[in-house]
């Protein structure tokens, strides 16, 4: 991948990843407000906000890194399956997106319920689930970003084999210019 294109995709990838993290942080705040507030209007607003943020910000931002990440890693010597930190990031991104998609229906349910009536004790487990799931997602995304910055050492057996083959290939090539 050419340097200019790589920088462009990298900028997109960082923007999506950090934007996703920020949006989930906003979701956590609204989930806590929805859980703790006694005012039905505030609770209704919080859950409506949660649903809107999820559909129009978090959902697109969760799928975008699944596109830019593999493009970036496959277009550079890093590769997609060569380093453990890239695999870990991919795993976090895929799982967080799956968990998000699974929670779309409960989020809509809470938003509709809070808009039409006062939430009851029967809704409490779902409210708790929203806080816990989004907090775990926030921590997971934070870990993914830390992995991207620190890039901890560690090559997968596949990555090691590829590197070994490439070195053997380089060594077997006749040297030019002698």
């Amino acid at each position, binding site marked *: 991948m050419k340097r200019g294109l790589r920088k462009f995709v990298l900028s997109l990838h960082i923007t999506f990843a950090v934007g996703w993290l920020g949006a989930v942080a906003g979701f956590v705040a609204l989930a806590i407000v929805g859980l703790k507030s006694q005012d039905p209007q505030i609770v209704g607003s919080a859950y409506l906000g949660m649903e809107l943020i999820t559909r129009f910000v978090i959902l697109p931002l969760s799928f975008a890194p699944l596109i830019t990440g593999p493009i970036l890693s496959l277009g550079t010597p890093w590769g997609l399956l060569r380093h*453990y930190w890239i695999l*870990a990031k991919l795993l976090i991104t895929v799982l967080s997106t799956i968990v998000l998609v699974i929670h779309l229906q409960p989020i809509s*349910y809470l938003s509709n319920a809070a808009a039409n009536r006062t939430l009851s004790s*029967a*809704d409490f487990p779902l409210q708790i*689930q929203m806080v816990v799931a989004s907090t775990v997602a926030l921590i997971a995304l934070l870990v993914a970003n830390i992995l991207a910055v620190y890039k901890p050492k*560690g*090559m997968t*057996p596949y990555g*090691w084999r590829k590197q070994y083959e490439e070195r053997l290939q380089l060594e077997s090539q006749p040297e030019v210019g002698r």
Partner: protein
Amino acid sequence: MSRTPPEMPRWVKVFGIIFIVLILIVIGAHLAGFNFGGHMPHMP
């Protein structure tokens, strides 16, 4: 360069253990009745 692949780093092992524990917690919560959306009083 050695002919054998390097050992898995410690951070990967720790990450793997945390990941497995989280999966077990989710499965445990699911079996205990905290399934995704399953405890919703009634779906619209």
